[in-house]
Protein backbone atom coordinates (compact mmCIF):
# COMPACT_ATOMS: atom_id res chain seq x y z
CA UNK A 1 0.00 0.00 0.00
CA UNK A 2 1.41 3.35 -0.98
CA UNK A 3 1.14 5.96 1.71
CA UNK A 4 1.28 8.86 -0.75
CA UNK A 5 -0.31 8.62 -4.13
CA UNK A 6 -0.10 11.39 -6.67
CA UNK A 7 -1.91 10.90 -9.96
CA UNK A 8 -1.67 13.22 -12.95
CA UNK A 9 -1.33 16.19 -10.68
CA UNK A 10 -1.54 19.49 -12.53
CA UNK A 11 -1.56 22.88 -10.96
CA UNK A 12 -2.03 26.05 -12.93
CA UNK A 13 -1.96 29.55 -11.58
CA UNK A 14 -3.92 32.32 -13.14
CA UNK A 15 -2.21 35.64 -12.92
CA UNK A 16 -3.68 38.95 -13.93
CA UNK A 17 -1.61 40.48 -16.66
CA UNK A 18 -0.04 43.60 -15.27
CA UNK A 19 0.27 46.65 -17.42
CA UNK A 20 2.94 49.24 -17.06
CA UNK A 21 2.53 52.84 -16.02
CA UNK A 22 -0.06 54.73 -14.04
CA UNK A 23 -2.97 54.13 -16.38
CA UNK A 24 -1.81 50.59 -16.85
CA UNK A 25 -2.26 50.02 -13.16
CA UNK A 26 -5.80 51.31 -13.30
CA UNK A 27 -6.52 49.13 -16.32
CA UNK A 28 -5.12 46.16 -14.41
CA UNK A 29 -7.76 46.66 -11.75
CA UNK A 30 -10.52 46.15 -14.27
CA UNK A 31 -9.03 43.93 -16.90
CA UNK A 32 -9.88 40.27 -17.33
CA UNK A 33 -6.71 39.29 -19.06
CA UNK A 34 -4.88 36.45 -17.46
CA UNK A 35 -1.77 34.57 -18.13
CA UNK A 36 -1.73 30.97 -17.09
CA UNK A 37 1.37 29.51 -15.56
CA UNK A 38 1.62 25.77 -15.14
CA UNK A 39 3.60 25.08 -12.00
CA UNK A 40 3.09 21.33 -11.97
CA UNK A 41 2.29 19.41 -15.13
CA UNK A 42 0.77 15.93 -15.05
CA UNK A 43 2.97 14.55 -12.29
CA UNK A 44 2.39 11.07 -10.92
CA UNK A 45 4.31 9.17 -8.30
CA UNK A 46 3.74 7.20 -5.15
CA UNK A 47 5.66 6.80 -1.96
CA UNK A 48 5.75 3.63 0.13
CA UNK A 49 5.59 3.58 3.88
CA UNK A 50 8.97 4.05 5.52
CA UNK A 51 10.72 5.55 2.51
CA UNK A 52 12.88 8.63 2.52
CA UNK A 53 12.27 10.38 -0.76
CA UNK A 54 14.22 13.33 -2.05
CA UNK A 55 12.05 15.64 -4.09
CA UNK A 56 14.41 17.84 -5.99
CA UNK A 57 14.64 20.26 -8.83
CA UNK A 58 15.90 23.75 -9.59
CA UNK A 59 14.21 26.83 -8.16
CA UNK A 60 10.70 27.31 -9.45
CA UNK A 61 10.48 23.71 -10.65
CA UNK A 62 7.20 23.07 -8.84
CA UNK A 63 8.52 21.36 -5.72
CA UNK A 64 6.81 23.48 -3.16
CA UNK A 65 3.58 23.51 -5.17
CA UNK A 66 3.53 19.73 -4.95
CA UNK A 67 4.34 19.72 -1.23
CA UNK A 68 1.69 22.38 -0.58
CA UNK A 69 -0.85 20.19 -2.34
CA UNK A 70 0.12 17.18 -0.25
CA UNK A 71 -0.13 19.23 2.93
CA UNK A 72 -3.57 20.51 1.95
CA UNK A 73 -2.71 24.14 1.37
CA UNK A 74 -3.36 24.09 -2.37
CA UNK A 75 -6.14 22.54 -4.41
CA UNK A 76 -4.89 21.03 -7.69
CA UNK A 77 -6.27 22.18 -11.03
CA UNK A 78 -6.64 18.56 -12.09
CA UNK A 79 -5.47 15.14 -10.99
CA UNK A 80 -5.50 13.68 -7.51
CA UNK A 81 -3.36 13.43 -4.46
CA UNK A 82 -4.02 11.01 -1.66
CA UNK A 83 -2.17 10.79 1.60
CA UNK A 84 -2.90 7.78 3.79
CA UNK A 85 -6.19 7.38 1.98
CA UNK A 86 -7.17 10.97 2.62
CA UNK A 87 -7.46 13.71 0.04
CA UNK A 88 -5.52 16.45 1.81
CA UNK A 89 -7.16 19.51 0.30
CA UNK A 90 -10.62 18.13 1.02
CA UNK A 91 -9.96 16.97 4.56
CA UNK A 92 -7.20 19.33 5.55
CA UNK A 93 -7.58 18.91 9.31
CA UNK A 94 -7.81 15.13 9.19
CA UNK A 95 -4.74 15.05 7.01
CA UNK A 96 -2.92 17.44 9.34
CA UNK A 97 -3.09 14.86 12.11
CA UNK A 98 -1.10 12.39 10.03
CA UNK A 99 1.66 14.70 8.95
CA UNK A 100 4.46 16.80 10.32
CA UNK A 101 5.82 19.74 8.36
CA UNK A 102 9.02 21.71 8.68
CA UNK A 103 9.58 24.61 6.33
CA UNK A 104 13.29 25.23 6.79
CA UNK A 105 13.26 28.98 6.76
CA UNK A 106 10.07 29.50 8.73
CA UNK A 107 9.71 28.44 12.30
CA UNK A 108 6.40 27.33 13.70
CA UNK A 109 7.61 28.00 17.23
CA UNK A 110 6.51 30.98 19.26
CA UNK A 111 9.28 33.45 18.82
CA UNK A 112 9.44 35.11 22.21
CA UNK A 113 8.88 32.31 24.66
CA UNK A 114 10.72 29.13 25.65
CA UNK A 115 10.50 26.09 23.39
CA UNK A 116 8.68 24.14 26.07
CA UNK A 117 5.62 26.38 25.73
CA UNK A 118 5.34 25.71 22.02
CA UNK A 119 5.69 22.00 22.74
CA UNK A 120 2.97 22.21 25.32
CA UNK A 121 0.64 23.97 22.93
CA UNK A 122 1.17 21.35 20.22
CA UNK A 123 0.60 18.62 22.74
CA UNK A 124 -2.89 19.94 23.31
CA UNK A 125 -3.59 20.92 19.76
CA UNK A 126 -2.88 17.39 18.54
CA UNK A 127 -4.47 15.91 21.68
CA UNK A 128 -1.44 13.73 22.29
CA UNK A 129 -1.82 11.03 24.92
CA UNK A 130 0.43 11.39 27.97
CA UNK A 131 2.20 8.08 27.42
CA UNK A 132 3.03 8.86 23.81
CA UNK A 133 4.09 12.37 24.71
CA UNK A 134 6.53 11.21 27.35
CA UNK A 135 7.92 8.47 25.16
CA UNK A 136 8.49 10.90 22.30
CA UNK A 137 10.03 13.52 24.52
CA UNK A 138 12.46 10.91 25.76
CA UNK A 139 13.50 10.13 22.22
CA UNK A 140 13.86 13.80 21.34
CA UNK A 141 15.97 14.58 24.34
CA UNK A 142 18.24 11.70 23.45
CA UNK A 143 18.69 12.26 19.76
CA UNK A 144 17.94 15.97 19.38
CA UNK A 145 19.32 17.12 22.71
CA UNK A 146 16.18 19.16 23.20
CA UNK A 147 16.74 19.35 26.95
CA UNK A 148 19.72 21.65 26.54
CA UNK A 149 17.61 24.55 25.38
CA UNK A 150 14.02 23.66 26.15
CA UNK A 151 13.68 26.60 28.52
CA UNK A 152 15.31 29.14 26.23
CA UNK A 153 13.19 31.63 24.30
CA UNK A 154 13.20 30.75 20.62
CA UNK A 155 14.63 34.08 19.50
CA UNK A 156 17.80 33.28 21.47
CA UNK A 157 18.36 29.88 19.84
CA UNK A 158 20.99 29.28 17.21
CA UNK A 159 19.75 28.27 13.78
CA UNK A 160 20.70 24.65 14.45
CA UNK A 161 18.93 24.54 17.78
CA UNK A 162 15.88 26.10 16.22
CA UNK A 163 15.79 23.46 13.52
CA UNK A 164 16.06 20.75 16.17
CA UNK A 165 13.23 22.35 18.12
CA UNK A 166 11.14 22.67 14.97
CA UNK A 167 11.69 19.01 14.17
CA UNK A 168 10.73 18.08 17.70
CA UNK A 169 7.50 20.08 17.56
CA UNK A 170 6.45 18.65 14.23
CA UNK A 171 7.14 15.06 15.30
CA UNK A 172 5.50 15.24 18.69
CA UNK A 173 2.34 13.51 17.55
CA UNK A 174 4.26 10.69 15.82
CA UNK A 175 3.06 11.58 12.33
CA UNK A 176 3.22 8.92 9.65
CA UNK A 177 4.69 11.36 7.18
CA UNK A 178 7.16 14.15 7.64
CA UNK A 179 7.59 16.82 4.99
CA UNK A 180 10.87 18.69 5.17
CA UNK A 181 11.48 21.74 3.06
CA UNK A 182 15.18 22.54 2.98
CA UNK A 183 15.86 21.17 6.44
CA UNK A 184 19.58 21.97 6.48
CA UNK A 185 19.58 25.36 4.83
CA UNK A 186 21.92 27.83 6.48
CA UNK A 187 23.38 25.35 8.95
CA UNK A 188 27.05 24.65 9.47
CA UNK A 189 28.56 21.34 8.48
CA UNK A 190 28.52 19.71 11.90
CA UNK A 191 24.94 20.68 12.61
CA UNK A 192 23.88 19.52 9.17
CA UNK A 193 25.40 16.16 9.97
CA UNK A 194 23.47 15.98 13.24
CA UNK A 195 20.19 16.86 11.63
CA UNK A 196 20.70 14.23 8.95
CA UNK A 197 21.49 11.59 11.53
CA UNK A 198 18.39 12.51 13.41
CA UNK A 199 16.22 12.29 10.32
CA UNK A 200 17.66 8.88 9.62
CA UNK A 201 16.99 7.73 13.17
CA UNK A 202 13.42 8.95 13.13
CA UNK A 203 12.87 7.13 9.90
CA UNK A 204 14.30 3.92 11.31
CA UNK A 205 12.88 3.98 14.82
CA UNK A 206 9.49 5.55 14.31
CA UNK A 207 9.01 4.28 10.78
CA UNK A 208 8.18 7.78 9.60
CA UNK A 209 7.91 8.28 5.87
CA UNK A 210 9.92 11.31 4.89
CA UNK A 211 9.60 13.55 1.85
CA UNK A 212 12.25 16.20 1.63
CA UNK A 213 13.09 18.96 -0.77
CA UNK A 214 16.60 20.28 -0.75
CA UNK A 215 19.31 21.95 -2.72
CA UNK A 216 21.98 20.33 -0.60
CA UNK A 217 23.30 17.34 -2.49
CA UNK A 218 24.84 15.84 0.62
CA UNK A 219 21.36 15.66 2.11
CA UNK A 220 20.25 13.61 -0.84
CA UNK A 221 23.28 11.40 -0.95
CA UNK A 222 23.19 10.60 2.73
CA UNK A 223 19.46 10.37 3.33
CA UNK A 224 17.44 9.44 0.32
CA UNK A 225 16.70 5.96 -0.83
CA UNK A 226 14.94 7.37 -3.75
CA UNK A 227 14.88 10.50 -5.83
CA UNK A 228 12.13 12.27 -7.66
CA UNK A 229 13.40 15.01 -9.93
CA UNK A 230 11.09 17.66 -11.26
CA UNK A 231 11.86 20.50 -13.62
CA UNK A 232 9.57 23.19 -15.00
CA UNK A 233 6.63 21.27 -13.58
CA UNK A 234 7.48 18.04 -15.36
CA UNK A 235 8.56 14.85 -13.66
CA UNK A 236 12.03 14.07 -14.97
CA UNK A 237 13.18 11.13 -13.00
CA UNK A 238 11.80 8.76 -10.40
CA UNK A 239 13.96 5.97 -9.10
CA UNK A 240 16.83 5.06 -6.87
CA UNK A 241 20.13 6.79 -6.68
CA UNK A 242 22.09 3.94 -8.30
CA UNK A 243 20.20 3.95 -11.55
CA UNK A 244 20.30 7.70 -11.72
CA UNK A 245 24.06 7.54 -11.45
CA UNK A 246 24.16 4.81 -14.03
CA UNK A 247 22.01 6.82 -16.38
CA UNK A 248 23.65 10.19 -16.07
CA UNK A 249 26.73 9.48 -14.04
CA UNK A 250 28.94 7.11 -16.02
CA UNK A 251 31.53 9.83 -15.66
CA UNK A 252 34.52 9.75 -13.42
CA UNK A 253 37.18 12.32 -12.84
CA UNK A 254 40.86 11.80 -12.48
CA UNK A 255 43.28 14.39 -11.19
CA UNK A 256 46.92 13.87 -12.07
CA UNK A 257 49.86 15.92 -10.81
CA UNK A 258 52.87 15.75 -13.09
CA UNK A 259 56.28 17.30 -13.29
CA UNK A 260 56.16 20.27 -15.55
CA UNK A 261 55.65 19.20 -19.13
CA UNK A 262 53.92 20.28 -22.31
CA UNK A 263 52.12 17.11 -23.23
CA UNK A 264 49.08 17.72 -25.38
CA UNK A 265 46.22 15.73 -23.90
CA UNK A 266 44.13 15.95 -27.06
CA UNK A 267 45.21 12.45 -27.85
CA UNK A 268 43.12 11.19 -24.94
CA UNK A 269 39.89 12.36 -26.47
CA UNK A 270 39.91 9.49 -28.91
CA UNK A 271 40.17 7.01 -26.07
CA UNK A 272 36.96 8.01 -24.27
CA UNK A 273 37.97 11.11 -22.33
CA UNK A 274 35.20 13.64 -22.53
CA UNK A 275 36.86 16.70 -21.06
CA UNK A 276 40.24 17.76 -19.78
CA UNK A 277 42.14 20.66 -18.33
CA UNK A 278 45.91 20.78 -18.06
CA UNK A 279 48.16 23.61 -17.04
CA UNK A 280 51.45 21.75 -17.34
CA UNK A 281 51.35 20.47 -13.76
CA UNK A 282 47.82 19.57 -12.82
CA UNK A 283 45.49 17.71 -15.13
CA UNK A 284 41.77 17.33 -14.58
CA UNK A 285 40.37 14.62 -16.75
CA UNK A 286 36.80 13.47 -17.13
CA UNK A 287 36.08 10.20 -18.79
CA UNK A 288 33.32 7.71 -19.34
CA UNK A 289 33.89 4.54 -17.37
CA UNK A 290 32.49 2.25 -20.02
CA UNK A 291 35.13 3.38 -22.52
CA UNK A 292 38.28 3.77 -20.52
CA UNK A 293 39.33 3.39 -16.91
CA UNK A 294 41.74 5.28 -14.70
CA UNK A 295 44.55 2.82 -15.31
CA UNK A 296 44.34 3.36 -19.04
CA UNK A 297 44.68 7.09 -18.69
CA UNK A 298 47.51 6.83 -16.18
CA UNK A 299 49.45 4.50 -18.45
CA UNK A 300 48.96 6.91 -21.34
CA UNK A 301 50.23 9.77 -19.21
CA UNK A 302 53.17 7.90 -17.74
CA UNK A 303 54.42 7.15 -21.21
CA UNK A 304 54.64 10.88 -21.90
CA UNK A 305 55.66 12.51 -18.61
CA UNK A 306 56.53 11.88 -14.97
CA UNK A 307 53.43 11.40 -12.86
CA UNK A 308 53.91 12.48 -9.25
CA UNK A 309 50.48 11.91 -7.81
CA UNK A 310 46.93 11.16 -8.83
CA UNK A 311 43.46 10.84 -7.37
CA UNK A 312 40.17 9.45 -8.63
CA UNK A 313 36.91 11.19 -7.87
CA UNK A 314 33.68 9.33 -7.78
CA UNK A 315 30.95 11.39 -9.36
CA UNK A 316 28.80 12.86 -6.70
CA UNK A 317 25.14 13.37 -7.03
CA UNK A 318 25.55 17.07 -7.49
CA UNK A 319 27.39 16.55 -10.72
CA UNK A 320 24.86 14.01 -11.81
CA UNK A 321 22.00 16.35 -11.22
CA UNK A 322 23.83 19.25 -12.77
CA UNK A 323 24.48 17.17 -15.80
CA UNK A 324 20.91 16.10 -15.90
CA UNK A 325 19.64 19.66 -15.68
CA UNK A 326 22.06 20.65 -18.41
CA UNK A 327 20.86 17.89 -20.67
CA UNK A 328 17.26 18.80 -20.01
CA UNK A 329 18.04 22.37 -20.82
CA UNK A 330 19.74 21.50 -24.06
CA UNK A 331 16.92 19.22 -25.03
CA UNK A 332 14.34 21.93 -24.46
CA UNK A 333 16.42 24.38 -26.45
CA UNK A 334 16.66 21.88 -29.26
CA UNK A 335 12.90 21.51 -29.26
CA UNK A 336 12.58 25.24 -29.77
Amino acid at each position, binding site marked *: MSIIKVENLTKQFKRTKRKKGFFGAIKTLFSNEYEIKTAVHDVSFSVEKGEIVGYIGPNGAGKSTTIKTLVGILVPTSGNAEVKGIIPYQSR*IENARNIGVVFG*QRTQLWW*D*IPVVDSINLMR*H*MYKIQDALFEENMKIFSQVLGIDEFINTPVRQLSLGQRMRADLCVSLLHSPDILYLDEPTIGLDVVVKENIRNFIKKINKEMGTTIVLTTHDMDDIEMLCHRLIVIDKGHLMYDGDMGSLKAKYGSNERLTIITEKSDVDLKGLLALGVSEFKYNGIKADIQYETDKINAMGILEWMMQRCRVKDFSIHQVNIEEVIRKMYRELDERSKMMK
Partner: protein
Amino acid sequence: MSNIKLYLLFFKTYLKVKSEYRFSFFMDLFSQFSTFAITYLSIWILFGRFKDINGWNFYEVVFLYNINLFSYGLAGLFFFNPLRFLEEMIHSGEFDCLMHKPMSVFMHLICRRFNQSYLGYLILGIIVFRFCMDKLNIIWTVANVIWFIIVMAGAFLIQASIIIISGTTGFWLTRSASVTETIVHRFRSFITYPVSIYNTFVQILLTFVIPYAFVNYYPGIYFLDREDSSLFSPYFQYLTPVVGIVLMILAMGFWRIGMNRYQSTGS
Protein backbone atom coordinates in the same frame (compact mmCIF):
# COMPACT_ATOMS: atom_id res chain seq x y z
CA MET B 1 -14.87 21.58 25.72
CA SER B 2 -11.34 20.70 24.77
CA ASN B 3 -11.44 23.59 22.31
CA ILE B 4 -12.02 26.00 25.15
CA LYS B 5 -9.13 24.45 27.01
CA LEU B 6 -6.94 24.86 23.96
CA TYR B 7 -8.02 28.47 23.60
CA LEU B 8 -7.18 29.19 27.23
CA LEU B 9 -3.82 27.56 26.72
CA PHE B 10 -3.21 29.85 23.75
CA PHE B 11 -4.15 32.80 25.89
CA LYS B 12 -1.80 31.71 28.67
CA THR B 13 0.99 31.27 26.15
CA TYR B 14 0.26 34.67 24.74
CA LEU B 15 0.38 36.33 28.15
CA LYS B 16 3.73 34.67 28.62
CA VAL B 17 4.95 36.32 25.43
CA LYS B 18 3.77 39.65 26.69
CA SER B 19 5.34 39.25 30.09
CA GLU B 20 8.64 39.01 28.24
CA TYR B 21 8.08 42.65 27.39
CA ARG B 22 6.39 43.90 30.50
CA PHE B 23 7.10 47.58 30.05
CA SER B 24 5.84 47.41 26.52
CA PHE B 25 2.65 45.77 27.76
CA PHE B 26 1.83 48.71 29.98
CA MET B 27 2.84 51.20 27.33
CA ASP B 28 0.39 49.48 24.98
CA LEU B 29 -2.36 50.11 27.47
CA PHE B 30 -1.20 53.63 28.19
CA SER B 31 -0.94 54.74 24.58
CA GLN B 32 -4.39 53.35 23.78
CA PHE B 33 -5.68 55.01 26.92
CA SER B 34 -4.32 58.35 25.83
CA THR B 35 -6.05 58.03 22.47
CA PHE B 36 -9.58 57.74 23.74
CA ALA B 37 -8.89 59.96 26.70
CA ILE B 38 -8.31 62.80 24.24
CA THR B 39 -11.54 61.98 22.43
CA TYR B 40 -13.44 62.32 25.69
CA LEU B 41 -11.46 65.46 26.42
CA SER B 42 -12.42 66.89 23.03
CA ILE B 43 -16.09 66.19 23.64
CA TRP B 44 -15.78 67.84 27.03
CA ILE B 45 -14.11 70.93 25.55
CA LEU B 46 -16.87 71.23 22.94
CA PHE B 47 -19.56 71.08 25.57
CA GLY B 48 -17.80 73.85 27.47
CA ARG B 49 -18.73 76.19 24.61
CA PHE B 50 -21.82 74.60 23.15
CA LYS B 51 -24.86 73.32 25.04
CA ASP B 52 -25.64 70.32 22.91
CA ILE B 53 -24.85 68.49 19.71
CA ASN B 54 -27.99 68.37 17.64
CA GLY B 55 -30.04 68.05 20.82
CA TRP B 56 -27.85 65.40 22.47
CA ASN B 57 -26.32 66.42 25.77
CA PHE B 58 -22.81 65.69 27.02
CA TYR B 59 -23.64 62.45 28.83
CA GLU B 60 -25.68 61.14 25.95
CA VAL B 61 -22.87 61.75 23.49
CA VAL B 62 -20.40 60.11 25.87
CA PHE B 63 -22.76 57.16 26.27
CA LEU B 64 -22.97 56.70 22.50
CA TYR B 65 -19.25 57.01 22.05
CA ASN B 66 -18.66 54.59 24.87
CA ILE B 67 -20.83 51.89 23.29
CA ASN B 68 -18.74 52.29 20.17
CA LEU B 69 -15.49 52.14 22.10
CA PHE B 70 -16.42 49.21 24.29
CA SER B 71 -17.74 47.03 21.48
CA TYR B 72 -14.79 47.97 19.32
CA GLY B 73 -12.38 47.17 22.14
CA LEU B 74 -13.93 43.76 22.61
CA ALA B 75 -13.86 43.02 18.89
CA GLY B 76 -10.34 44.40 18.53
CA LEU B 77 -9.04 42.29 21.39
CA PHE B 78 -9.73 39.14 19.40
CA PHE B 79 -9.85 40.16 15.78
CA PHE B 80 -7.77 43.24 15.09
CA ASN B 81 -4.26 41.83 15.12
CA PRO B 82 -5.02 38.54 13.37
CA LEU B 83 -6.80 40.29 10.51
CA ARG B 84 -4.67 43.39 10.35
CA PHE B 85 -1.55 41.26 9.93
CA LEU B 86 -3.12 38.62 7.68
CA GLU B 87 -1.58 40.16 4.59
CA GLU B 88 1.84 40.19 6.24
CA MET B 89 1.50 36.57 7.35
CA ILE B 90 0.57 35.51 3.85
CA HIS B 91 3.67 37.17 2.44
CA SER B 92 6.04 35.81 5.03
CA GLY B 93 4.71 32.26 4.65
CA GLU B 94 3.59 32.17 8.26
CA PHE B 95 0.06 31.62 7.02
CA ASP B 96 1.09 28.31 5.45
CA CYS B 97 2.23 27.14 8.87
CA LEU B 98 -1.31 27.58 10.15
CA MET B 99 -2.59 25.43 7.35
CA HIS B 100 -0.79 22.25 8.24
CA LYS B 101 -2.14 22.15 11.79
CA PRO B 102 -5.20 20.14 12.79
CA MET B 103 -7.25 23.18 13.63
CA SER B 104 -9.52 25.58 11.83
CA VAL B 105 -7.27 28.16 10.23
CA PHE B 106 -9.51 31.01 11.31
CA MET B 107 -9.59 29.82 14.92
CA HIS B 108 -5.85 29.29 14.91
CA LEU B 109 -5.28 32.77 13.58
CA ILE B 110 -7.52 34.27 16.23
CA CYS B 111 -5.87 32.22 18.96
CA ARG B 112 -2.37 33.08 17.92
CA ARG B 113 -2.61 36.82 18.02
CA PHE B 114 -4.39 38.83 20.61
CA ASN B 115 -4.03 42.53 21.07
CA GLN B 116 -3.99 43.17 24.77
CA SER B 117 -3.84 46.93 24.31
CA TYR B 118 -7.59 46.75 23.69
CA LEU B 119 -8.00 45.75 27.31
CA GLY B 120 -7.47 49.46 27.97
CA TYR B 121 -10.63 50.23 26.00
CA LEU B 122 -12.61 47.78 28.05
CA ILE B 123 -11.38 49.06 31.40
CA LEU B 124 -12.04 52.68 30.53
CA GLY B 125 -15.30 51.70 28.87
CA ILE B 126 -16.61 50.20 32.09
CA ILE B 127 -15.50 53.22 34.10
CA VAL B 128 -17.23 55.59 31.70
CA PHE B 129 -20.43 53.53 31.62
CA ARG B 130 -20.50 53.64 35.39
CA PHE B 131 -19.85 57.38 35.31
CA CYS B 132 -22.66 58.33 32.96
CA MET B 133 -25.28 55.83 34.15
CA ASP B 134 -26.44 58.12 36.96
CA LYS B 135 -26.66 61.14 34.74
CA LEU B 136 -28.79 59.50 32.07
CA ASN B 137 -32.50 58.94 32.29
CA ILE B 138 -32.37 55.25 31.64
CA ILE B 139 -34.52 53.06 33.86
CA TRP B 140 -32.58 49.85 34.27
CA THR B 141 -35.32 47.28 34.46
CA VAL B 142 -34.32 43.64 34.12
CA ALA B 143 -35.64 43.62 30.58
CA ASN B 144 -33.60 46.72 29.74
CA VAL B 145 -30.42 45.22 31.17
CA ILE B 146 -30.91 42.04 29.17
CA TRP B 147 -31.65 44.04 26.04
CA PHE B 148 -28.57 46.16 26.65
CA ILE B 149 -26.39 43.05 26.85
CA ILE B 150 -27.95 41.71 23.63
CA VAL B 151 -27.36 45.05 21.92
CA MET B 152 -23.73 45.05 23.07
CA ALA B 153 -23.34 41.54 21.66
CA GLY B 154 -24.80 42.77 18.37
CA ALA B 155 -22.52 45.79 18.37
CA PHE B 156 -19.57 43.49 19.05
CA LEU B 157 -20.55 41.32 16.07
CA ILE B 158 -20.84 44.36 13.79
CA GLN B 159 -17.43 45.68 14.84
CA ALA B 160 -15.86 42.23 14.54
CA SER B 161 -17.39 41.57 11.12
CA ILE B 162 -16.13 44.84 9.71
CA ILE B 163 -12.62 44.11 10.99
CA ILE B 164 -12.80 40.60 9.50
CA ILE B 165 -14.11 41.76 6.13
CA SER B 166 -11.54 44.51 5.74
CA GLY B 167 -8.68 42.25 6.84
CA THR B 168 -9.77 39.41 4.57
CA THR B 169 -9.10 41.63 1.55
CA GLY B 170 -5.50 40.62 2.29
CA PHE B 171 -6.14 37.49 0.22
CA TRP B 172 -6.43 39.78 -2.80
CA LEU B 173 -4.55 42.95 -2.01
CA THR B 174 -0.89 43.19 -1.16
CA ARG B 175 -1.43 46.11 1.15
CA SER B 176 -4.72 45.35 2.81
CA ALA B 177 -3.52 46.82 6.09
CA SER B 178 -4.37 50.25 4.77
CA VAL B 179 -7.90 49.07 3.97
CA THR B 180 -8.32 48.00 7.58
CA GLU B 181 -6.85 51.22 8.90
CA THR B 182 -9.02 53.36 6.66
CA ILE B 183 -12.28 51.61 7.45
CA VAL B 184 -11.76 50.69 11.06
CA HIS B 185 -9.99 53.83 12.17
CA ARG B 186 -11.07 56.57 9.81
CA PHE B 187 -14.52 55.52 8.69
CA ARG B 188 -15.55 54.48 12.19
CA SER B 189 -14.88 58.02 13.39
CA PHE B 190 -18.27 58.91 11.89
CA ILE B 191 -19.96 57.35 14.90
CA THR B 192 -18.03 59.38 17.45
CA TYR B 193 -21.06 61.70 17.29
CA PRO B 194 -24.76 60.99 16.75
CA VAL B 195 -25.26 59.95 13.16
CA SER B 196 -28.12 62.43 12.72
CA ILE B 197 -25.60 65.27 12.35
CA TYR B 198 -24.60 64.04 8.90
CA ASN B 199 -26.28 64.56 5.58
CA THR B 200 -28.59 61.94 4.10
CA PHE B 201 -25.92 60.36 1.96
CA VAL B 202 -23.65 59.65 4.92
CA GLN B 203 -26.56 58.33 6.95
CA ILE B 204 -27.47 55.90 4.17
CA LEU B 205 -23.84 54.85 3.98
CA LEU B 206 -23.66 54.22 7.71
CA THR B 207 -26.94 52.33 7.74
CA PHE B 208 -26.82 50.14 4.65
CA VAL B 209 -23.26 49.98 3.38
CA ILE B 210 -20.95 49.93 6.38
CA PRO B 211 -23.61 49.76 9.07
CA TYR B 212 -21.74 51.38 11.93
CA ALA B 213 -24.88 53.36 12.82
CA PHE B 214 -26.32 50.18 14.33
CA VAL B 215 -23.46 50.01 16.79
CA ASN B 216 -24.48 53.01 18.86
CA TYR B 217 -26.85 55.44 17.17
CA TYR B 218 -29.95 53.29 16.63
CA PRO B 219 -29.78 51.48 19.98
CA GLY B 220 -29.04 54.86 21.59
CA ILE B 221 -32.38 56.14 20.32
CA TYR B 222 -34.06 53.34 22.23
CA PHE B 223 -32.14 53.61 25.49
CA LEU B 224 -32.17 57.37 25.67
CA ASP B 225 -35.80 57.40 24.60
CA ARG B 226 -35.29 60.02 21.96
CA GLU B 227 -37.46 61.18 19.13
CA ASP B 228 -36.16 59.34 16.14
CA SER B 229 -34.67 62.10 14.09
CA SER B 230 -33.19 59.72 11.57
CA LEU B 231 -34.55 59.15 8.13
CA PHE B 232 -35.51 55.54 8.48
CA SER B 233 -38.07 53.28 10.08
CA PRO B 234 -38.39 53.47 13.87
CA TYR B 235 -37.87 49.71 13.96
CA PHE B 236 -34.21 50.26 13.18
CA GLN B 237 -33.56 50.89 16.86
CA TYR B 238 -34.22 47.20 17.54
CA LEU B 239 -32.21 45.78 14.68
CA THR B 240 -28.66 45.84 16.06
CA PRO B 241 -28.50 42.11 16.99
CA VAL B 242 -29.96 41.08 13.64
CA VAL B 243 -27.55 43.29 11.71
CA GLY B 244 -24.70 41.87 13.80
CA ILE B 245 -25.59 38.27 13.03
CA VAL B 246 -26.19 38.87 9.33
CA LEU B 247 -22.94 40.78 9.01
CA MET B 248 -21.01 38.07 10.80
CA ILE B 249 -22.44 35.44 8.44
CA LEU B 250 -21.37 37.61 5.51
CA ALA B 251 -17.93 38.05 7.03
CA MET B 252 -17.46 34.32 7.47
CA GLY B 253 -18.65 33.75 3.92
CA PHE B 254 -16.17 36.32 2.68
CA TRP B 255 -13.44 34.61 4.66
CA ARG B 256 -14.32 31.28 3.01
CA ILE B 257 -14.13 32.88 -0.43
CA GLY B 258 -10.74 34.29 0.49
CA MET B 259 -9.52 30.91 1.73
CA ASN B 260 -10.72 29.22 -1.45
CA ARG B 261 -8.86 31.75 -3.47
CA TYR B 262 -5.76 31.19 -1.39
CA GLN B 263 -6.04 27.44 -1.84
CA SER B 264 -6.24 27.81 -5.57
CA THR B 265 -3.57 30.47 -6.02
CA GLY B 266 -1.36 30.05 -3.02
CA SER B 267 -0.71 33.73 -2.86
